[in-house]
């Protein structure tokens, strides 16, 4: 029983990181209809920037948190302004390819500026052990679960009740008509990119704090793909849940089957799910009436 609880707890912790990145995927998809293939790379870049910041100015938690948010927002805005907005009106596929190009650039940039070796993130607080019942958790693991929970509630309320949130959903559905309603769609999309990069950045920093910083952090983006798809690309909340599900399934297959299956379990899962529900578990089906 304890074994199962342990598996569940750590599965939720890693799932929360996937979930955050999946939320980031969904945010961009929802407001622009795009998949940002550089999402994992954005997370990595923010983590590296934060690492460099912590190296310079110390690893005070508040300082690191503020910097992460600022770095994420700035990175998101820069990407949107330099790469995405000029592509407005081009086919979706072309813009998706632009993000693939961005992914390649960000990966190499990290190696160019820093180096290829793993380094400790330097946030000691994250690796402190916390005892809950009879299981040990790292403080960072508990934090990331809490962070995802908080962002989950916040974004639910945002999209449900805030007028800006509703406007974002409207832009996602039909940006031209949103324009006619007086929405500055470019600004909405910029905000979505900023928010997405910030959330991804938080996930990147948490991951780096738990598992060290190294140039292959971007691969959490690959793990979050199945999560986002599973939840439904257009469902921000669904994606977060998708992350938890993928984390849990990974840990269950790892804990009861084998480790090699664990690493692809997410992909196997989505292939199965997509065959049955082509828009994911929580995704909106195309409304055929209109």
């Amino acid at each position, binding site marked *: 029983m304890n074994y199962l609880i342990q598996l569940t707890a750590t599965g939720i912790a890693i799932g929360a990181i996937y979930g955050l990145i999946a939320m980031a995927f969904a945010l961009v998809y929802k407001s622009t209809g795009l998949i940002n293939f550089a999402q994992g790379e954005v997370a990595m870049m923010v983590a590296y920037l934060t690492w460099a910041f912590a190296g310079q100015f110390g690893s005070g938690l508040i300082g690191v948190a503020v910097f992460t948010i600022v770095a994420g927002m700035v990175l998101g805005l820069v990407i949107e302004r330099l790469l995405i907005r000029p592509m407005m009106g081009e086919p979706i596929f072309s813009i998706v390819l632009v993000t693939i190009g961005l992914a390649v650039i960000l990966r190499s940039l990290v190696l160019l500026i820093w180096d290829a070796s793993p380094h400790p993130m330097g946030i000691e607080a994250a690796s402190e052990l916390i005892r809950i019942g009879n299981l040990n958790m790292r403080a960072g693991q508990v934090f990331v679960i809490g962070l995802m929970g908080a962002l989950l509630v916040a974004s639910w309320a945002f999209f449900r009740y805030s007028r800006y949130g509703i406007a974002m959903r409207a832009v996602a559905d039909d940006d031209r008509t949103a324009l006619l309603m007086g929405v500055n769609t470019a600004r909405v999309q910029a905000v979505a990119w900023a928010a997405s990069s910030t959330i991804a950045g938080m996930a990147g920093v948490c991951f780096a704090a738990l598992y060290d910083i190294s140039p292959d952090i971007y691969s959490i983006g690959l793990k979050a793909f199945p999560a986002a798809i599973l939840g439904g690309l257009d469902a921000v909340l669904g994606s977060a849940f998708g992350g938890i599900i993928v984390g849990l399934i990974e840990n269950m297959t790892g804990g009861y089957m084998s480790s090699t299956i664990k690493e692809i379990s997410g992909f196997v899962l*989505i*292939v199965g799910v*997509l065959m049955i529900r082509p*828009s994911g578990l929580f995704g909106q089906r195309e409304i055929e009436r209109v």
Partner: protein
Amino acid sequence: MRSGNFKQNVGELIALTDSKSVATWSCLLMVALIGAPMVLDAHLLGLVTVILFTLVGALGLNILMGYTGLVSLGHVGFLVLGAYGYAVTVGIHGLHPLLGFLMAGIVPAIAGVIVGAPSLRLKGIYLAITTMAFAFIINTAILEADFITNGSSGIFLPRPTMFGISFKSDAAFYWLCLFFAVAALAVTLNIRRSRIGRAFMAIRDNDIAAQSMGINLIAYKLLAFVMSAFMTGIAGALFGVYLSFVTVEGFTFHLTIEALAILVVGGLGSALGVVLGTILIVLLPEITGVLLSLTGDAAQEVMATKAFEVRNILYGVIIIGFLRFDPTGLVGIWKDVQRTWVNWPLKY
């Protein structure tokens, strides 16, 4: 000189070329390519060989993405299956290389049916991700099935001997790749002007409309996957033979991105574009090397240890640059140049 581009019947429209000069130049190029090993040094010959077998794979992807408009991010999966199809047949069981090449096409083609099946239900990004998932699953499957594939140990591949000809030398292997590249190009060009090709392009432009015109969506989408996978598989086998050693590690996800870059840079859906794109992308490292050697010492210092990174950044920049400033790719530029050449000094 022609004063314009007029087609008077369908035959002219679908002809491979209506221009004598294009035909002449193609023949000259062919002769030059056949004679290349006599002139090029080993390094350059190696590069041209890489271009040739990369071209086979890129043309394969082009059938799926360029012609039929189905996005695949898992083409490296077909590539690795092709390499293993050949390696298991020839490298492990010692069967005839011809059978190996056949398997290199058939195995991925079968996988193509399996991967293609979701394309009937999924569209766009969802399909792209399913294909990507496939690439990851294939890798694990090959590693796990070590009783067939030698697992992680990899398979040694000697250069083949077929019909009494040994392809051991670089020149001979080059000619083998040239043969496959020309064959792939011929197939691609001819698909384009056949009923199948027109069906593919109809699906690309509007699959619902295509269906209403009597095109069997299921059959043609699967056919596109099968043909694409077959060609990509052949490229995988050639790649494996070139490396002389096949492991899963040799086929990274990066290859998929490289293939996408080729199509984007060259110009999606155009065979000429794929050729130009392949040449540019394969030669990119050499080009950057030359360019950076022209710069100062400081840059060369960076190049000494960070050459790969600089190159990759350039890679990304080129992809984005083409998408942003010239979505028609190199083939578009080529056509512009041609037009300017013919019409100069008039605009059009």
